[in-house]
């Protein structure tokens, strides 16, 4: 069976390649820092299960120290110039989109085919992880296609990949760090404290305000934790179940589903959701690292208000 573990190995090998090529990149004054940083990521992906919890802990501290104290720079792997790219684009035409579509097409068609054919019961891929496995397969197919078609130098995938990962920098690791922070918040009982505090601000006997505090609480706590998954059990325990569902008799499907979506409005408004909000700022080389968050507020706030309204209207018909 092809499991997630295979993908960790693939990604780990890639980061190991980035580390080795970083070490040899004399255009980057901080090349050893980059080599160490991507080397630790490779170690985590290749051997994270072998070095124990404490070993992983020190690995994370190492990543944070390298990034936090400015040891990671930006390499300049040789690539094509803007003019060369225009020339290639003119020469290759729209065929250039085909390899770009291999990854989404493999993931999309593969997932559908796998789930709606006898293949799905063959246990070829780890359950529920088939899209990830197919994503990896798509990547390999795309690389192969580009090599056969355009014959770039052999190290091109690693060098071009390194160019992009260096432009993202530590922001590539931050989402995983934040997920780990969420686990510590939970272990320290932050959820119970927040739940208790939220409950204490609810005025007695007002259904609308209770629904509003539930929705706003979901959004705010999601902003703190960086994802709605951590917020939902807390807000459900504090307000959703005891007040909205049990006391006021609200429809649990509406309270649950729309409450979660109110949390998603919070995800749009927080730098803590780094993979959605900070990583694209790095990927698109924005000047303002909070630019994406700011652009989302005007969608998130009205949507949050409407979600509260949906709970108020639809759950209590």
């Amino acid at each position: 069976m092809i499991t997630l573990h295979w993908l960790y190995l693939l990604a780990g090998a890639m980061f190991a390649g980035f580390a080795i090529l970083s070490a040899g990149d004399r255009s980057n004054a901080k090349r050893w820092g980059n080599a160490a940083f991507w080397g630790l990521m490779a170690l985590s992906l290749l051997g994270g299960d072998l070095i124990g919890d404490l070993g992983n802990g020190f690995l994370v501290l190492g990543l944070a120290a390298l990034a936090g104290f400015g040891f990671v720079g930006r390499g300049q792997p040789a690539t094509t110039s803007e003019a060369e790219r225009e020339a290639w684009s003119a020469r290759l035409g729209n065929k250039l989109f085909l390899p770009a579509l291999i990854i989404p097409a493999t993931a999309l068609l593969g997932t559908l085919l796998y789930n709606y054919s006898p293949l799905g019961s063959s246990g070829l891929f780890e359950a529920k992880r088939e899209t990830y496995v197919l994503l990896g397969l798509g990547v390999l197919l795309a690389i192969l296609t580009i090599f056969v078609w355009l014959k770039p130098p052999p190290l091109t995938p690693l060098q071009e990949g390194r160019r992009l990962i260096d432009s993202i920098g530590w922001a590539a690791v931050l989402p995983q760090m934040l997920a780990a922070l969420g686990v510590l918040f939970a272990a320290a009982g932050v959820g119970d404290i927040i739940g208790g505090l939220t409950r204490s601000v609810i005025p007695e006997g007002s259904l609308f305000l209770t629904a509003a505090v539930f929705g706003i609480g979901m959004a705010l706590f999601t902003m703190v934790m960086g994802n709605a998954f951590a917020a939902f059990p807390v807000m459900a325990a504090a307000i959703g179940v005891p007040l909205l569902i049990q006391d006021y008799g609200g429809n649990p499907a509406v309270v649950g589903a729309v409450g979660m979506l109110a949390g998603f409005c919070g995800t749009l408004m927080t730098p803590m959701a780094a993979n959605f909000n900070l990583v694209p700022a790095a990927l698109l080389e924005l000047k303002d690292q909070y630019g994406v968050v700011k652009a989302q507020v005007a969608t998130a706030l009205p949507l949050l208000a409407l979600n509260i309204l949906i709970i108020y209207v639809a759950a209590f018909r």
Partner: protein
Amino acid sequence: MNYWPLLGILLVVAGFALRLNPMLVVTVAALATGLLAGLDPLAVIATFGKAFNDNRIIAIVWIVLPVIGMLERFGLQQRAATLIRSMRKATTGKLLLLYLGYRQLTAAIGLHSTAGQAQTVRPLVAPMALAAAEKEHGELDEETAETVKELAAATDNVGLFFGEDIFFAIGSIVLIQATLATYGIDLAPLQLAVWAIPTAILAFLIHGARLLLLDRRLRRSGK
């Protein structure tokens, strides 16, 4: 009740507000939170390390970078821009609106990880949106180009968040179901998923309206 663990949240908020390096902010907040909750220092580090290791799936998405980088080398972004310039009716707003709908629909049938910021926004959607904006507006000043790129990234997020919950086998639906089940409330995933539809439509309308407003702004401020 012991309110000290909340100090960790305060550290995070202050750190982000002061724009300190987020990697350091998060690490310090994690260590402080664990210590304030009464764990011994090594246990805090081990908990942090285990959680990091358990979340390695987040790092998998980066395997697309070599492909995206290689295609950029051969002019993919330039090609995407050329294609948009050749479509006379394409505007930034309409293009992003189309992508919003595509993202919501594919996410709604469980194909949420087939597109994304690294997979589609950087190589295709953002350069196309910029090219369409230039057509409408003439050469873009830096601020306008930033706005267009920010909205391209935002559109991917909005489409993903308010599409994926319509798919009943997604993590968040499972979590809602499992949480409510602990209170003896038994719901089928499908009962929950249908209630994601009204919000999905509203998200399309609100964000879509903003995208079309962007078109108007680009036209007015342009040539």
